[in-house]
């Protein structure tokens, strides 16, 4: 599964993109955030305030309950601030 990070989530994680093999029981966006948090201090800092991190699965905005079992690409980022 391809993971993407943007803005301060990217800065805290330390890189913008990676490919990971996710355990079968990590099957939602929320579960993925918790699983990633345990991969190191940068990840922990990025996901410490879970309410401030948004997600997209295959380039569509989703909530924490979204299923990721068929996802090709999951992205994490702060609330958007364009315009």
């Amino acid at each position: 599964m391809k993971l993407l990070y943007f803005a301060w989530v990217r800065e805290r994680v330390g890189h913008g993109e990676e490919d990971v093999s996710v355990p079968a029981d990590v099957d939602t966006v929320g579960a993925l955030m918790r699983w990633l948090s345990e991969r190191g201090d940068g990840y922990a800092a990025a996901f410490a305030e879970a309410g401030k991190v948004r997600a997209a699965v295959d380039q569509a905005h989703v909530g924490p309950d979204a299923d990721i079992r068929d996802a090709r690409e999951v992205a994490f980022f702060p609330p958007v601030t364009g315009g």
Partner: protein
Amino acid sequence: MADRPHAGYSSSVQEADFDLAREVDAMRDGRTDIGAVVTFTGTVRDMHGDTQIADLTLEHYPGMTEKALDALARDAAARFPLLGCRIVHRVGTMRPGDNIVLVVTCSAHRQAAFDAAMFMMDDLKMRAPFWKKETRAVDGAWQGAWVDARESDAQAAAKWADASPRPIAADADG
């Protein structure tokens, strides 16, 4: 849009600046059924509250951004009786006074053109995957800081959730 064959919509994500006149001329394109053209240009301000800003960098999610802007223009064309709409958003680093975003809407009637342009900006600020990082003057030094999302933008976007386009009188113009 089978029911509105002339409601052309398009979007662009680009580093380069845009040209207001060229974008408007391209949409009007000699047409004589348009009665109202609205443009919104968002520009970089030199202050954020009381803090001075040196520059602004727009990060985005390549791939998703293009889809999001295209969906935004398509939604506006479906929701309002438009004869065309377009959104152009820049990415990269910009300085105060520079252009960030352009929305152009054309309609037979002014209310639809205004409403569609406001809808597109409100929706853009909630959905399009852009993030702003400012270089701010803090205690005499320049410091990079990500811009926080604002509750007022969520409220602005929410007001369209239940709103239907206003009915337009058949003979209304301008």
